[in-house]
């Protein structure tokens, strides 16, 4: 399902993550990851994001993840909330 509007979930506070989902020009998804612990956990963040996004059926979106050291459960929760907000606009 594609989206039309930009949405966010989470925050930039310490131990949280801000997930922003915006419409992309193509039908593919693009995931951008920024993290204060990119060296240690960059790959894991990407893997979790890909997994949650694939399970949701989201398409044609730019998913921007700004991580401030969130736990994996926080990351999943923020991703799921942002995706459900993005898809709720249909």
């Amino acid at each position, binding site marked *: 399902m594609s989206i039309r*509007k*930009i*949405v*966010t979930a*989470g*925050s*930039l*506070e*310490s*131990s*949280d993550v*801000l997930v*922003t989902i*915006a419409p992309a020009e193509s039908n593919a998804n693009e995931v*951008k990851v*920024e993290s*204060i612990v990119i060296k240690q956990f960059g790959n894991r963040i990407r893997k979790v994001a890909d997994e949650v996004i694939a399970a949701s059926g989201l398409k044609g979106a730019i998913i*921007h993840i*700004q991580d*401030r050291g969130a736990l994996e459960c926080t990351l999943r929760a923020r991703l799921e909330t942002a995706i459900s907000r993005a898809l709720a606009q249909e």
Partner: protein
Amino acid sequence: MSAEHFGWEERILFSSKEIAERNALLISRGLNVPENADLIIGLYEGDTLIATGSLVGTVLQGIAVSSQTEGEGAAAAIVSSLIKNAVNRGIQHLFLFSSAQEANRFEALGFSLLASTAQILAFSDFLEGANGAALLEWPTGQIDNWLNSLKPVVEGKPYGSGAVVVNCNPFTLGHRALIEYAALKSPWLYVIVVEEDRSLFPFNVRFELVKKGTADIKNITVLKGGQYVISSATFPTYFIRPKNSEADTVSIAVSLHAALDLILFRRYIAPALKVTDRFVGTEPYCPTTSSYNKMMKKILPAAKGEGVPIRVHEIPRFEIEGAAVSASRVRDLLRSGNIHAIKPLVPETTWQWLTSAEALPVIKKIQHSNSRH
């Protein structure tokens, strides 16, 4: 984690008491109080305001944390809240003004630095003691998208092109003379029209009149200025008519905004367009534009600083019978209803538009407005 966990309460500030507290906090941190804020947010610890931030159009400004609360994450809470509020209003692309020294704190919050007066060495000399400023954007990569969109335009054009940036409110023989001269001196010329729709003539009219009025010149491309050339993000004070009582503070703000706009031009726009020369008309009337031109001659050609030095050519204003032909003069004549005196000042294409039915609402607006633009 939300702010409440620390005993902080987030409020949207409305009352005159809250606004006064916020202004006092900004001033105590040495910051200017932004005008025309669409939204002002504050964090309270009990009855004490400990942090604040404002949304002005698409720009985050006036972000400050009290000295007692620094380092506890209040700035992150404020910025997060401003982003969420902006996104809820449908804004996808945000800018942020900060002092040059604090820009890195906002970079840590996911903003990317576009321009900082710290990038121009010896800038302090230009500003006569004022604090430097920086402009950042969110999310990252927006300027790259815009520069990429210019690639098809630039393809096949020569290195060493010229550029003029014009508002053309409306297009006159003065603009025409500047563009003719610049096109003669350059292998290719980009005419960049300020896109911000805050002038008396709407952008689409200004843009069309420039295109029509220069259609016979073969080596030029007329471009939209977008958000990175004199916009309310890069240069908000360009569009404001200063009150006389505030002339000093405004002149510092104008210098800072002008500097950031010119650093953007030098760092991103000129390299993307392969531009090495910028042409500008002398400014006899408007103090804002005259201050911008002054700053241009210092920043663009400077040997040190990011990007390639750009030559600035300042061309005397085109005159008819000893008086400079300018758009502000045309607007004054429209305001006083002296339409026929305009004919010798503008190209035939502009004259046709001014005497068309389409122009009536614009002329009416000018006659009822006191705006500088």
